[in-house]
């Protein structure tokens, strides 16, 4: 009797609490059940994957996903979307673009490396694939990817204000030699490709330049226009409109050949300095992807990259159109990796995360 009263007499608050805790427990149990169910499903897909080899010639059987490590609307994203659009008809399957942004591209590329190596997840890789790991800012290296195709390359352009006293690279270098640390040269952030471009100029001409880091190329250009810095090394597209408007001039292009948008500007090489730094974009898959799948992907995307619609969009974006197959692309990446490694050592930039 006494016990019974006690149970009945439990105050409503405590009762609610007990019930709540039971509910949480139940919820956990239920969801755990679901998740283990899910896990078995996952396991079975892994068993299937041994059959992939037989079915390779049927690739792709479903939609292909392109992971873009940068925000929608940017240059890399636009290239990916245009390429995806063109590629649909060559694969006869949808080609989707997924943006995974963050940490200067490291998040998206990490996701790409860790994706299932079945060819359905392709990653838009950029020159950051080489720079980030070298700086210790990414948990992967370029060799974790198997390149498929390069679609773009843009060299840096040494650009100054129209009224600057230099008209050739030689003028610039001469001034820099006589006035070490005097020329303030803007780039899109320390460790960015345009910083390496400026650093490479300094290294090969044996001059000392003062690097000023901005949050992207656009603010650097504004600061050049406003007179806070003396030069920038960014892509031609980023300064072209001001060059045409007569406010800026390009002293030299950091590439092997002249570029179509500024045919009158000589390259550094022509002016006697062997410097070439470019940014590039292309596609890659995890390194264990079966050979046959990679071949199919390369064939399909090459056709897409030669599609007239794609070429037109690249021209509209004012991005350098350059298509290279996977072997050539791999070579480009490897060379770039070596060059950046040497530069980082000479600059004394610490590989940031090495101690961790």
């Amino acid at each position, binding site marked *: 009797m006494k016990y019974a009263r006690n149970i009945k007499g439990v105050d409503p*608050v405590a009762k*609610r*609490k007990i019930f*709540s*805790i039971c*509910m*949480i427990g139940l*919820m*956990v149990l*239920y*969801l*755990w059940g*679901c*998740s283990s*169910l*899910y896990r078995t*499903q996952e396991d079975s897909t892994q068993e299937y994957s041994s059959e992939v080899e037989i079915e390779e010639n049927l690739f792709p059987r479903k939609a292909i996903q392109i992971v873009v490590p940068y925000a929608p609307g940017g240059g890399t994203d636009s290239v990916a979307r245009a390429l995806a659009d063109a590629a649909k008809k060559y694969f006869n399957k949808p080609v989707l673009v*997924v943006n995974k942004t963050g940490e200067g591209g490291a998040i998206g590329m990490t996701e790409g490396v860790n994706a299932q190596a079945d060819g359905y997840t392709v990653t838009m890789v950029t020159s950051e694939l080489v720079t980030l790991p070298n700086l210790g800012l990414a948990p992967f290296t370029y060799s974790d990817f198997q390149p498929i195709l390069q679609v773009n390359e843009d060299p840096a352009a040494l650009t100054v204000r129209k009224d600057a006293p230099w008209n050739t690279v030689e003028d610039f270098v001469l001034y820099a030699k006589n006035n070490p640390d005097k020329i303030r040269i803007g780039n899109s952030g320390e460790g960015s490709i345009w910083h390496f471009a400026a650093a490479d100029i300094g290294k090969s001409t044996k001059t000392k330049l003062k690097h000023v880091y901005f949050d992207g190329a656009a603010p650097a250009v504004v600061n050049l226009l406003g007179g806070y810095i003396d030069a920038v090394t960014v892509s031609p597209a980023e300064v072209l409109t001001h060059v045409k408007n007569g406010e800026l001039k390009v002293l030299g292009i950091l590439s092997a050949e002249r570029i179509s948008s500024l045919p009158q500007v000589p390259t550094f090489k022509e002016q006697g300095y062997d410097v070439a730094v470019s940014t590039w974009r292309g596609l890659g898959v995890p390194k264990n992807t079966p050979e046959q799948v990679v071949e199919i992907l390369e064939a399909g995307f090459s056709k897409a990259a030669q599609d007239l619609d794609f070429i037109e969009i690249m021209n509209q974006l004012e991005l350098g159109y350059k298509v290279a197959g996977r072997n050539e692309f791999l070579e480009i990446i490897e060379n770039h990796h070596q060059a950046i490694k040497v530069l980082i050592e000479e600059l*004394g930039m*610490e590989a940031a995360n090495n*101690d961790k």
Partner: protein
Amino acid sequence: MRKADIIGGLMGVFISAFVFYESSKFPEDIVMKIGPSYFPRILAMGLLLVSGILILQAYMGKSKKPAEKFDIKEPGIQRAGIALLSTIVYCMILDKVGFIPSSILYLVFLMYLLEKRNYVKMTMISTAVVVGIYIIFKTILNITLPSGFFG
């Protein structure tokens, strides 16, 4: 309030000590004296100062307002605690179970916690809200939500 002020102040001291310790590992800028540790250290000093004053004031009994006691036995606070716990559980299983089933369960549970008792209505509202969010995010805006089981 006094106790809370002291705890708050101690946390401030702890954070600033941590900032000092961590920033000692930052590389110094070779060219400029102002490197990555410059700003955080100024802040850590400021934080230390302010926290010190706060603790001092609390000791001298200058803290204002009688404390609104944080009583773990109070039903309201327990309810908030359960809500927090269930949120944590929900987040842990979100990407394993998938968005739709876990969210519906989560909503129903929270409504129950807040003493709603009309189960049919609760389930219906929850399902409608979750499916609505799912459609807006995934279908219209193409933002991926955790899929998991049930896709």
